[in-house]
């Protein structure tokens, strides 16, 4: 295995981590706001707040880890993506700021105002939308390298069906992932009203999630035929992912083993996410940037990998402790502590 592959695998793994934990967070914020809107707050808010409060900063670090790591491992991405993404990334920062300030002002500062709750809920939809644009851009065709520098073709980007399909996929996935997780969490807490409501959301969002995911593969055919071919070559992986999807939906529909259902869901996204990543190989940005021509110096690569392993050894037990105290601790989940 080359350093390039290790580097991108590590980053992709952390991005996957972010996709899952952030989806739970974003979706929860949206469901929370929606329950306030429809006066069902008494059912959902407690369970959502209880899970979200101790972990949100950790969620954010996954993202920071990814973008710091990618500049470390693949410094040329700073030049290409950094220049092209000024506006979309700045907008994402502002949206992330809205979420951060919700915690700062509402959760910690007890400044209760429904306006914040709505803003917070909506930001949970806009952030995945704005971040997913990066994936669209990576498919190529939207960034041009001119003598004056890198420029992003906004008109082409926002009129492309691919852009909007990926946006819709990010939204449906967020709501689906979040609903399945929260169903499990609510069930653990013994809160039947919340479980039933969230289970309903999970089932509702499962269908659009899988349809848009499939739709994107089809769209790739016209947008980036090389990538499409590579996706098709990996069909067994997507097949496994689909089977895991069916299992999750089955378990949720039958009201069985919500914990297992969530694990299946993570498996479904893990396989699909890595299949997509592998099919993208070796490009970081079609057709300008591959993981090979953008790679960092060898000395840095070794240092980063060593630092990563050391950091990981520190992180895993800490994360385990966090989960044990707030996720797997019955008393906490049920609100006794």
């Amino acid at each position, binding site marked *: 295995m080359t350093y390039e592959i290790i580097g991108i695998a590590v980053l992709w793994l952390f991005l996957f981590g972010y996709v899952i934990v952030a989806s739970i967070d974003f979706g929860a914020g949206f469901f929370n706001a929606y329950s306030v809107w429809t006066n069902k707050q008494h059912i959902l808010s407690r369970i959502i707040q209880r899970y979200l*409060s*101790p*972990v949100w*900063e*950790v969620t*954010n*670090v996954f*993202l*920071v*880890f990814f*973008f*710091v790591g990618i*500049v*470390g*491992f*693949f*410094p*040329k991405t*700073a*030049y290409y*993506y*950094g*220049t092209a993404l*000024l*506006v979309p*990334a*700045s907008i994402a*920062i*502002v949206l*992330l*700021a809205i979420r*951060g*300030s919700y915690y*700062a*002002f509402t959760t*910690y*500062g*007890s*400044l209760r105002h429904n306006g914040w709750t709505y803003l917070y809920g909506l930001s949970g939809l806009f952030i995945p939308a704005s971040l997913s644009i990066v994936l669209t851009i990576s498919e190529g065709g939207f960034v041009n390298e001119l003598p*004056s*520098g*890198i*420029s992003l073709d906004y008109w082409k980007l926002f009129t492309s069906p691919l852009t909007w399909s990926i946006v819709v996929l990010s939204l449906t996935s967020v709501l689906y992932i979040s609903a399945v997780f929260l169903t499990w969490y609510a069930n653990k807490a013994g809160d039947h009203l919340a479980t039933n409501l969230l289970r309903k959301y999970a089932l509702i969002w499962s269908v659009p999630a899988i349809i848009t995911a499939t739709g994107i593969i089809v769209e790739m055919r016209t947008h980036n035929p090389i990538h499409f071919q590579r996706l098709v070559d990996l069909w067994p992986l997507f097949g496994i992912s689909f089977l895991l999807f069916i299992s999750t939906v089955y378990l949720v529909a039958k009201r069985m083993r919500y914990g297992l259902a969530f694990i299946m869901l993570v498996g479904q996204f893990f396989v699909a996410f890595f299949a997509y990543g592998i099919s993208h190989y070796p490009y970081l940005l079609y057709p300008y940037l591959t993981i090979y021509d953008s790679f*960092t*110096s*060898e*000395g*840095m690569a070794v*240092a*980063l990998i060593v*630092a990563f392993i050391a*950091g990981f050894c*520190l*992180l895993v037990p*800490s*994360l385990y*402790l*966090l989960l044990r*105290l*707030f996720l797997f601790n019955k008393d906490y989940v049920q609100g006794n502590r």
Partner: protein
Amino acid sequence: MGNEQSVFFSRVLTELTLSFHIIYATIGVGIPLMIFIAQWIGIKKQDEHYILLARRWTRGFVITVAVGVVTGTAIGLQLSLLWPNFMELAGNVIALPLFMETFAFFFEAIFLGIYLYTWDRFENQKKHLLLLVPVAIGASFSAVFITIVNAFMNTPQGFEFAGGELINVQPIVAMLNPAMPTKVAHVLATAYMTSAFILASIGAFRLLKGSDHQYHKKALFLTMKIALVFSIAAAVIGDFSGKYLAEYQPEKLAAYEWHFETEEGASLLLYGVLEDGNEVKYAIEIPYGLSILAHGNPNAEVIGLDQFPEDEIPPLYIHYLFDLMVTIGMGLAVLALIYVVGVWTKRQFIHSRGFRWLIVASGPLAMLAIEAGWWLTEVGRQPWVLRGLLRTSEAATTNDQVDTMLVLFAGLYLVLGIGSVIVLKRMFRNNPVEQELQDRQEKR
């Protein structure tokens, strides 16, 4: 928008973000240590007041952390968005500490979450206190790693250029650059110092506003003692910084000091104004001061600005920032000293309203000194991003929408700043110490 404008707006936006972020970052680095000390004393003395001090500081602290996470994410991304050419080079050579910083923060965030939600979950109070250790370590190491990156920008090393290619990259050598020891030490000491003064301000303010509770008196004395220790440390390290600058960045020191001609036995200029380019007026001159500051020897030669080409000299207004930083730093050290000695010798004047107002001012003044210090060191490195290698003007983005982003972020910081002030004020006004102590007693 031409490239010059992109450079200009990129600089303004970075300056704005950093100036805003440094407030939260400084508090974020310093306060965990203060909480730790208070809780430790509380457990050791079995004194409810100190425990409550730790609890209340924590409540305020998490709000600043939450905002700090936001502004930290902003600057983290903005580095790549606004300075893509710099980050491309940095990624090759100095990415390691940036990467380690995310781990440090990860660590801090996990344990802060646990610490925060487990106040009454442990039978043994010491176990709960232990959870704070990784928070404090993570916070301080975040500062260490980021400061290392900044130090590298001042004295880049650990790599070679050969035909436009970077070769022989040694990340550890890059991290252990000459600017690192003094910079890291100075940043940490001043963060602890500033945090202590801010907490002292709050204590003094409550005492002035009619509360005469032991709680505030204990808080004030404790924080002033800590502030004294770290102001002395900051001053000593400041002296080392002068010697470092004289050796590695003489143009920076010369610009701080308006030292135009290379000479032996150079005198130190304090205050004053600059007229007609290089005529200093109304300055206080300390004979041999600069030679002592730079080399520890009154007759040593100090390199002046005459040794450098015109286009490699930083703007000279930074002398005013230097004066501001040093004056506040020294003034606060004296203030803390008088207070602590005054308590020991049981003097009454330190409890007077006037003196308490001075303490109230100390927190904001310390923060102003932090700001002045960062402006000083950043502007003092100009025209370089990486001293001697990459000019700021060559490092900025070519994207022409930076001005719009500047407006966007200015709005964001305004909302965050006002929001945090309102929330912090409400939090402590709605739940005064007396009330909370009473509630806690009834609970037992």
